[in-house]
């Protein structure tokens, strides 16, 4: 059992899976020699050689395209896109090919590949470094989209993603890469993809969040609990496919639903979650299912970013609004 932060859990998971499975290869921009800009792949090239952990040209389309080729030939590539905003040149490869290969080949080929990328704001960064693109990927049939919020889940979900027979988009909340540590077992384990986690059970309202916002919601919960509001917090963990069952069961119990995400509001993941709640738990609702999400703007540059980032006090206010509806 080691105390690891999320970045450490990524490294540990990649290391243990490269050791276990010789078909796993890890690459991307600055991934090899430098060990990645966030140091997620530190030491892997040294340990497994340049054939299994290496740097690539600055071409995200090539990174994903070659991964498709490797995966179709029986390897398990785990590629890193340096920042969420850099993935855009690779969307053609991801959407037009990776997501469709199983269907296109009528089930003959599947692509066991993982595309990792840090995502989300709150780190006072530049353009293309702060976005939350989970809905873009979740909208594409054939892709799984996973976002961990703790070191434990990071290892378990990353191992599950690498072993998954189909492409998995693995979004890492960079804001909390090093924000806290948690016990992460040395031994092998996976956290199932498609299964949300009830972080905290409660009676009055169901709050769904993921990634870096889990911690922010937890801070908000501390506030509202002082006023006697009992919150059930669900960490979605997998954006697609959504764990409908856990959410519906929870809303049937609490009768109220709030989804909090940093991704921009319109056409965001919250819209889908609220639709599910309306469709499946309508008769239990005490208040309108509600979303607290990023404004419909490009994430602002550092000086204005605090206007965009969702803070615990906003979450607490929204929780009270829904409960007191």
């Amino acid at each position, binding site marked *: 059992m080691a*105390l690891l*932060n999320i970045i450490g859990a990524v490294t540990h998971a990649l290391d243990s899976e490269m050791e276990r499975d010789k078909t796993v290869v890890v690459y991307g921009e*600055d991934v090899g020699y*430098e060990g990645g*800009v*966030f*140091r997620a792949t*530190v030491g892997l090239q040294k340990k497994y050689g340049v054939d299994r952990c290496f740097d690539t040209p600055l071409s995200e389309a090539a990174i994903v395209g070659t991964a498709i080729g490797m995966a179709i030939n029986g390897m398990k590539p785990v590629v890193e896109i*340096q*920042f969420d905003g850099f993935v855009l040149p690779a969307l053609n490869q991801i959407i037009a090919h990776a997501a469709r290969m199983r269907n296109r080949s009528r089930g003959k080929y599947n692509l066991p590949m993982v595309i990792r990328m840090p995502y989300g704001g709150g*780190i*006072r*960064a*530049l353009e293309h*470094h*702060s976005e939350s693109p989970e809905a873009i990927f979740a909208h594409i049939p054939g892709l799984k989209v996973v976002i961990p919020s*703790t070191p*434990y*889940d990071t290892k*378990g979900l990353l191992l599950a993603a690498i072993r998954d027979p189909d492409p998995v988009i693995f979004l890492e909340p*960079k*804001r*909390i*890469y*090093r*924000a*806290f*540590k*948690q*016990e992460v077992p040395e031994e092998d384990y996976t*956290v199932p993809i498609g299964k949300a*986690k*009830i972080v905290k*059970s409660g*009676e009055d309202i169901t709050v769904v969040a993921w990634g870096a916002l889990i911690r922010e919601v937890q801070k908000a919960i501390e506030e509202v609990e002082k006023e006697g509001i009992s919150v059930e917090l669900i960490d979605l963990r997998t954006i697609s496919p959504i764990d409908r069952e856990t959410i519906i*069961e929870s809303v*049937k*119990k609490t*009768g109220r639903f709030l989804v909090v995400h940093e991704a921009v509001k319109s056409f965001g993941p919250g819209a889908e979650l609220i639709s599910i709640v309306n469709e499946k738990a*309508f*008769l*239990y*609702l*005490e208040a*309108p299912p509600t979303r607290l999400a990023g404004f419909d703007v490009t994430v602002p540059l*550092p000086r204005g970013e605090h206007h965009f980032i969702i803070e615990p006090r906003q979450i607490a206010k929204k929780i009270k609004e829904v409960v007191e509806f």
Partner: protein
Amino acid sequence: MFEFKFADIGEGIHEGVLLKWFVKEGDTVKEGDSLFLVETDKVNAEIPSPVSGKINKLLADVGETIHVGNTVVIIDDGGENNKVDSKNEPLSEDEKGAGVVGQIEVSSEVIESSDEGKQEEKKGKTKVLATPVARKLAKDLGIDINLVKGTGPAGRVMKEDIYAYKERKEKKLEVSQDAKETDVFIQPVGATFLRPEVKREEIKVYGEVERVPISRIRKTISENMVLSKSVIPHTSVMDDFDVTELVKLRTEQKEMARERGINLTYMPFIIKALTIALKEFPVFNSSFDDIKDEIIYKKYYNIGIATDTPDGLMVPVLKEANNKGILEIAKELEGLVERARNKTIGIEELYGGTFTITNYGALGSSYGVPVIRYPEVAILGIGKIDKKPVVMNDEIVIRHMMPVSLSIDHRIIDGGDAGRFLLRLKELLSNPMLLLLS
């Protein structure tokens, strides 16, 4: 003192050119304020201060190349000589988090271990089913919807259920305020009518008693009576009919009927007269739907006959009395009453009545205030036919008089209507030949 070192800013950058200082020695800075602008081979980045304090010394000049690990500025943060390059405790090389493209929070705070796979059992608190509009309604009315019993699909609480619950609650409140010993409230039954229920305190007894459970029939009678009296505002009108001619006719025809095996009573004549009057006064053959505020006029005439049986009151129904002759009615009536008394009557023979006659005269009474059979709107009580001295043409004569009592639902039938209806019956029964002509 805080020595700010140019940190490993990630992206493989080891050095940068200091382009601009945003602070000078002696300035006060807050955590997050930009200290300097650095140009790397990737980007130009503003480097924020990790602490609040006073700028003590700048250790690099504009245009100078600074390397990772170089101390660039010393900030007086009020603390001891502090050589870390982050706001937290010293970190090993791989834990440096500040980046040229941003600033990542770095902390060694340990969060709770994952409880994956050992989550607690779900608690059993359940919610009633209801549409949001129903919940809103309950909230607006100040009602806890979880206390309302639903009558909709799968027990869903409907708006009607909430209204009924509210009414019941208010009734309860009213009564408890002005009458302590009884507790009356209205409970909804089905969707079309309100069913009254009377709650009472336990009956005190002051001597030896025997408690006997009531029969099913008695229970039904009891419920029907309470229902009728609670929902229908009754009123009654009474009169005496001169039935001397009818008595004469019946006496004449009795023998003839007996030869055909029919026991001819007055009842068939009364039923016949009634069907004629009901056609002329259709509201007496109706029901009042007070939910929809509509009167349901019935085009069929089924006359219920209140019958005294050993088990209690039963009301067999003579169907389509308007289409039957007097002897036919007499014959059918006899069978019905017989079957009611020996409990062989079919259930269908007890339903579908549109108007009821009760003949308490058979036991010698004259007047009564009959209770309407809900959802009918009137009932005719027949008293004992007796010879009475009456004034005719200013002379006292002896006539056969039949006392009648008519109870009506005063919500839809006025006293005037009742009077006119009785008058028509009187006319028909005083001149039985009219029965044949009608």
